[in-house]
């Protein structure tokens, strides 16, 4: 998770002027609405992630920022300037495509230099800036190669260099790491953050990979069916999702469906039939009496033990049905008497525990009243 900024450089918290303003933007293709009335502010120096599964409209939104897609209704402002009617070649943005879209007949150097020559810069300046950029993205020695002589990771860096070379006010990245294998992707994530911090450019990244969004982003916008479901910092999105979709999309979660039986400002009781228990929550919930709602519990929150824990806010009995060993952690799937399953994770801190919990053991699952989230939708 990303903890690199202090509250003072979180402009979305202190009421600064946003750098990019997306106001009630929609885009429809005939009867299909790809982006539906989206409003979003992005601040200077941010690395904003648009997160969603394929077809949720995130790429369309990105392309509208670049001017490659027209806006059906609404308004986009970048640095105080209305972008309506401004062609892609006149916008202060650059985009990095998912396919990289390198010019196949040009070598690395010419690919990167292309944008500068279009601006009519003198050759000597272009050469200097391209050389600096090649150093920055660590492509020295590759200058004369054509795209088809490069590996996937190298192509990705050429595409990044090409989109950075014009020092855009806003850099748009469409699934920048999707084509890389896992190991390279993790390395590149950190490289991308480093470059972003070094250059101070505002980034908007589109991704379907929630881990990637968590690692990269200052804030995340979760999209579904053309609508933004929640905009928040990674930690907040994970710990306090607004609804079941977001809770489920980001990480894994145990969902309990129930009815409020009692609520006051610092305590709520939820009667949950499918686990045959009453869940204690340490805060009030604004809802009507007997309203149906959901309690979301992340798998790393609950404890698992052989003996009934004392003073636990919530305890439920079950049997270990499945254990998945993942090296750094193990995932336990516990089946309750009602048949409901709870997944929980344990970090494997000790090499060998005295008496490890194993398959078919009767166990108690317990959690603190403050460790889950109540969702009303």
């Amino acid at each position, binding site marked *: 998770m990303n903890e690199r900024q202090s509250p003072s450089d979180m402009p979305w918290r202190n009421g600064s002027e946003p750098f990019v303003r997306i106001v009630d933007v929609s885009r429809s293709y005939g009867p299909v609405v790809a982006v539906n009335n989206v409003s979003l502010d992005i601040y200077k120096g941010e690395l904003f992630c648009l997160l969603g599964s394929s077809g949720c409209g995130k790429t369309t939104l990105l392309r509208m920022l*670049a*001017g*490659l897609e027209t806006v059906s209704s609404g308004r986009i402002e970048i640095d105080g300037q209305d972008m309506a009617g401004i*062609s*892609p*070649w006149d*916008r202060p*943005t*650059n*985009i990095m*495509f998912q*396919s990289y*879209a*390198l*010019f*196949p*007949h040009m070598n690395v150097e010419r690919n990167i230099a*292309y*944008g500068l020559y*279009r*601006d009519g810069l003198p050759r000597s300046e272009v050469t200097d800036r391209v050389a600096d950029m090649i150093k920055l993205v660590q492509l020295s020695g590759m200058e004369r190669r054509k*795209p*088809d002589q490069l590996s996937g990771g190298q192509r990705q860096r050429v595409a990044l260099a*090409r*989109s950075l070379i*014009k020092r855009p006010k806003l850099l748009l990245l469409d699934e920048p790491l999707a084509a890389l294998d896992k190991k390279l992707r993790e390395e590149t994530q950190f490289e991308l953050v480093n470059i972003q911090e070094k250059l101070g450019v505002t980034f908007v990244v589109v991704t379907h990979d929630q881990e990637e969004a968590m690692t990269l982003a200052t804030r995340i916008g979760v999209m579904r069916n053309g609508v933004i479901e929640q905009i928040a910092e990674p930690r907040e999105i994970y710990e306090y999702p607004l609804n079941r979709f977001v809770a489920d999309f980001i990480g894994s979660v145990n969902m309990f469906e129930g009815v409020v039986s009692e609520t006051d400002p610092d305590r709520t009781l939820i009667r949950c039939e499918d686990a045959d228990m009453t869940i204690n929550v340490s805060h009030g919930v604004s809802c009507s009496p007997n309203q149906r709602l959901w309690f979301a519990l992340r798998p790393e929150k609950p404890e698992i033990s052989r003996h009934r824990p004392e003073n636990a806010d919530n305890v439920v009995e079950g049997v270990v049905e499945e254990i998945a060993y993942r090296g750094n952690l193990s995932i336990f799937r516990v089946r309750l008497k009602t048949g409901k399953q709870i997944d929980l994770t344990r970090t494997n801190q000790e090499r060998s525990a005295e008496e490890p919990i194993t398959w078919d053991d009767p166990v108690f699952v317990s959690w603190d009243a403050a460790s889950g989230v109540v969702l009303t939708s």
Partner: protein
Amino acid sequence: MKRIPLLSIMALIGFIFLYAPILSLVVYSFNESRLVTVWSGFSTKWYGELLRDPQILGAAWISLKVAVASATISLVLGTMASLALVRYGRFRFRELFSGMTTAPLVMPDVITGISLLLLFVTMEALFGWPAGRGLLTIIIAHTTFCMAYVAVVVETRLINVDRSVEEAAADLGAKPLRIFFDVTLPSIAPALVSGWLLAFTLSLDDLVIASFVAGPGSTTLPMLIFSKVRLGVSPDVNALATILIGLVAIGIAISAFVMTRNGRSSETDA
């Protein structure tokens, strides 16, 4: 993989059927005898004879001019048509336009020839252009059917050009015309080369359409050969035909080579 002998025999028969007549023509072009069907020894004298025949040289020159001009014009027009078909997206009558572009491919030459002749005559009567039949009318006529071939060849390539590469150029500050010359044109260049060569050979080959729209003093090579043969096959015609076959074969070979190489490189792009 084990080859089935029967299949190779069938292929052999097919090739013999296709190429035996051409082969005999090539062989007899090196015949010394004046009698076409009697072999009397190897000689290249009929090729020398050709070079001394002003009528043949004149016709060859006309054919070459027509082929270059109509290939070039149909390259421009055909490319424009395929750009409109591929890039304009779904405009009204797109299917109709697409069908109409490729219709000349299957139109019988005789019909194309007659209709063009009628058109030229009517146009001359109405506004005096084109004045008479000649080089110009043959070029126009050849352009009409060559253009269809160019359009098909270029369209196939254009469909496979990655749209986002053009968008990347736009994003980096290139305006549409610039994008076309910097990105689109290099991507479709192999198709343009093979389209031009195809048009060139088609024009060089054509007898029927040219016969309809040609006028006095604009006899093309195939027309000359045809008229000569009607008076009896002479050995110099064999030599001429051999040269023509050579030219066409080279044209098609280069065009095929360019297309396959291009196909391979676009595979590695993906």
